[in-house]
């Protein structure tokens, strides 16, 4: 067995819990969390859209709260617990939000969907949405170019268990 190469100067070794698995990685400080996930860690379920925090395709959950993984450096997240779209299901059992997106036909091309679903799970965790208006406002960080918004709100609302279908302005 060849000896492991010593880390390059200027790199940093961090450990993360990603989708339930402990991972230790050595990275350059300019590596974004998104690029770490999609590159070295092979978690390509998380999508790169605008890469500037404007579209929400890269949304992941850190300690249960949603963030844009493109706008954080991986090195800042040493010790964090990260959940991506790939960690929501339990074996073959989909997460209720994933089921709801299928049930309500809440996507077309699917590119924004991992971010939409992670964001929606975060929205439920955060507990601030109680109406259709609030779902719309609190999902505003996720853009869907296909325009599946109406069905996305239906899916989120079904998981929230809200039945007061207020008229949409």
């Amino acid at each position, binding site marked *: 067995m060849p000896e492991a190469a010593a880390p390059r100067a*200027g790199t*940093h070794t961090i450990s993360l819990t990603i989708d339930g698995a402990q991972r230790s990685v050595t990275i*350059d*400080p*300019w590596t*974004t969390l998104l690029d770490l996930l999609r590159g070295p860690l092979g978690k390509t379920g998380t999508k790169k859209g605008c*890469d*500037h*925090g404007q579209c*929400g395709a890269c*949304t992941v959950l850190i300690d249960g*709260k*949603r*963030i*844009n993984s*493109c*706008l*954080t*450096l991986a*090195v*800042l997240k040493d010790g964090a617990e990260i959940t991506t779209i790939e960690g929501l299901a339990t074996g073959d059992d989909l997460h209720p939000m994933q089921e709801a997106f299928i049930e309500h036909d809440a996507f077309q091309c699917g590119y924004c969907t991992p971010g939409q679903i992670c*964001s929606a799970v*975060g*929205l439920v965790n*955060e507990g*601030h949405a109680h*109406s259709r*208006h*609030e779902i*719309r*406002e*609190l*999902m*505003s*960080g*996720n853009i869907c170019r296909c325009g599946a918004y109406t069905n996305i709100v239906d899916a989120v609302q079904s998981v929230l268990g809200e039945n007061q279908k207020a008229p949409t*302005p």
Partner: protein
Amino acid sequence: MMRFSYSRPQTVAQAAASLVADPSAQIIAGGTNLVDLMKYDVTRPGTVIDINGLDLRDIRVDGEGTLQLGALATNADTAYHPEVQSGWPLLSSAMLAAASPQLRNAATNGGNILQRTRCYYFYDPSTPCNKRRPGSGCGALHGVNRIHAILGESANCIAVHPSDMAVALAALDAVVTVEGPAGERQIPFDDFHRLPGDRPDLDNTMERGEIVTAISVPANGFGSHHTYLKLRDRQSYAFALVSVAAAIRLEGETIAELRVALGGVAHKPWRRKDVEAEFIGRPANRPTFEAFAQALMEGATGHGHNDFKLDLAPRAIVRALEQAHAGTPQNQAVKVVF
């Protein structure tokens, strides 16, 4: 993204010393603005100093009833904090009008007030910008300037400050605590951000080596008569074209105290305490609000594309004062403007 080295100090003093030792170093907290600016090659720190290890996340009300916000508390934790929502609803509302849930979960209070302008020319290194590269000129002055300033600007810069939180903090007479090599000092909010003048590269009055550690907001949070009215190109997740933080204290139907700060119109939240003072004792009605709006707009000038703000801003001020007077603050989820 360009390369940089990284350090993670454990104390404010260490962070301040690192800033002084390396003129190219910059602080990172939530990263939502700095990482974006580095990706666009607008800023090129040689070292990024990660202050997330510092103990500055507290949100509490102290013995004098002052709200004390740690610089590293997130915007979401601040806006949804029960004490903030009940005692300082104007601040909470303004913060929830800003950005997206993902950004509010990451962005910090210190970073919010230190965020850079969203001027297109500042963001595009192929164009001139006195803020990004002093002496190179201003692309916006004779360029596309519909988002730009109508008050307090100079021939060198017509950029606006993008923060919503800062507009509410200006109205609420907040104080910023900074700590640096010379120790700790308090900066009244109106003195924290600066007008561009001939140094648009300087957004604020902090000295090199100083770090924002806390923001305090006095006990009078105007709990009942307030509003944050934000007007923008789309109803969610967009920067303000014009925003108004308004608060009134009434004695009967007479104005006993009046606070109005504007966002989206100047290099800093725009507030005129001298104008507010003139309206104490006046009846709280639409003619008074219209007269106040005209007085607050004194000196406003358009630059072409942003001429519409000369009409939009006074109308927004009147509408905001009517909302504050009626005790019907703008709902940030239901977008109808009453």
